[in-house]
């Protein structure tokens, strides 16, 4: 009997885009729910973002619109808390953490052992130290940000990488993260690869750009939260999974 029933119903396979569509619907609803207690302008921004990303029904979002949507969310994200905290997983096995305070103190943790960072800034761009104050003083206008970052680089071909670093490895102000997303949206070398899942099965949108070495670097971002989920290099390069990136009151432990 069960076999007859199964035969009657058949096995309707999902349409290949179905999974991504459902996830987006879900992510947008989760986001709206989290924001429900916030001020109206923030909610309005989130709604505007949903409209920008998802556009007219049946129309695939473009690379630019996804990055611009992420910028809108980034702008309204919270930046309060004592510690900037990043927790990454390298190559699926090695976990490392960083905490930094606004007054320049920083700690790293490896193997559960916390070490105070002394004598140098925990942040860098293209191999040069970058202080917390320098990061805070970055302009929040996309064109000005692009100009400032370009001036700091030994090689202009590092621009996309340096801008994307402001999204998650540095305690950039919300307005600066938004500007970085907008500046990336205007770079022709940033290619949109479509909806992807990272190695932990989290859904996002993938973008890639080349490094001067010829390596292709791919970032997966969640445009609904503006978080970077992972960063992967091709040619067997390393994979970094972002487990946490943001401000918190919980210090190194």
């Amino acid at each position: 009997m069960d076999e007859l029933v199964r035969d009657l119903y058949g096995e309707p396979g999902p349409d290949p885009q179905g999974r991504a569509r459902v996830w987006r619907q879900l992510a947008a609803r989760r986001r709206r729910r989290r924001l429900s207690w916030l001020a109206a302008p923030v909610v309005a921004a989130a709604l505007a973002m949903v409209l920008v990303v998802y556009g007219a029904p049946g129309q695939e979002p473009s690379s630019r619109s996804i990055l611009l949507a992420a910028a809108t969310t980034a702008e309204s994200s919270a930046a309060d808390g004592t510690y900037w905290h990043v927790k990454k997983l390298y190559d699926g096995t090695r976990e490392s953490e960083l905490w930094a305070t606004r007054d320049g103190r920083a700690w790293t943790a490896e193997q559960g052992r916390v070490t105070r960072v002394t004598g140098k800034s925990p942040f860098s761009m293209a191999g040069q130290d970058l202080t917390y104050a320098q990061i805070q003083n970055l302009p929040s206008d996309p064109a000005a940000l692009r100009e400032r970052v370009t001036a700091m680089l030994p090689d202009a071909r590092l621009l996309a990488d340096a801008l994307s670093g402001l999204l998650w490895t540095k305690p950039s102000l919300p307005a600066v993260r938004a500007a970085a997303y907008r500046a990336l949206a205007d770079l022709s070398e940033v290619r949109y690869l479509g909806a992807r899942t990272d190695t932990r099965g989290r859904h996002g949108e993938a973008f890639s750009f080349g490094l001067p070495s010829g390596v292709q670097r791919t970032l997966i971002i969640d445009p609904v939260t503006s978080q970077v989920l992972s960063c992967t290099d091709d040619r067997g390069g390393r994979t970094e999974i972002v487990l946490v990136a943001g401000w918190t009151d919980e210090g190194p432990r």
Partner: protein
Amino acid sequence: MTGETIAMPVPWTARAPGALDAEGFEELFGRCFGEIHTYVAQRLGPDHAEDIVAETFFTAFRKRAQYDPSRASVRAWLYGIATNLIGKHRRLEARTLRALGRFGPEADSPGHEDSVAVRVSAQSLRPELASALAELDRRDRDVLLLVALAGLTHEEIATALGIPYGTVGSRLNRARKKLRARLGEVRVHG
């Protein structure tokens, strides 16, 4: 990420098994989307499945604190939520069943090793079976389909639907009996 090195080998410790935090929820979605979508599309048709599936996962996300890994597999729990949501779309389900009776499933279901005889008889029984299913009490149909389509055990169904273990068996028997009676003289195994 440019030139930053804060990494040293650290053993990766997994989260508490069964815990359903926001991260675990994403994994759950990745793992279970396919089968939940299939189940909903079977019962309500592919056109409406995505909305109901989104609703299922959204409900699961909202109620994740209530999920108790010691009581039910997370998969059974999702099937329970989906089944309750499907229950709110009785007319759509009836319409889907009528269409299945007339035309068969839309997807070109791969020909598994079913015997030709079963396929042929299934083909001729299709309209009768579909209308018999539509006439079942919804609660009986839920149990029958959670066994036949989702492959859940009686215990999983009891937890997923929040009904006593014995009730699962009695509903299942009643449903099968009615279908057999309806299909009449044709000999059916199962």
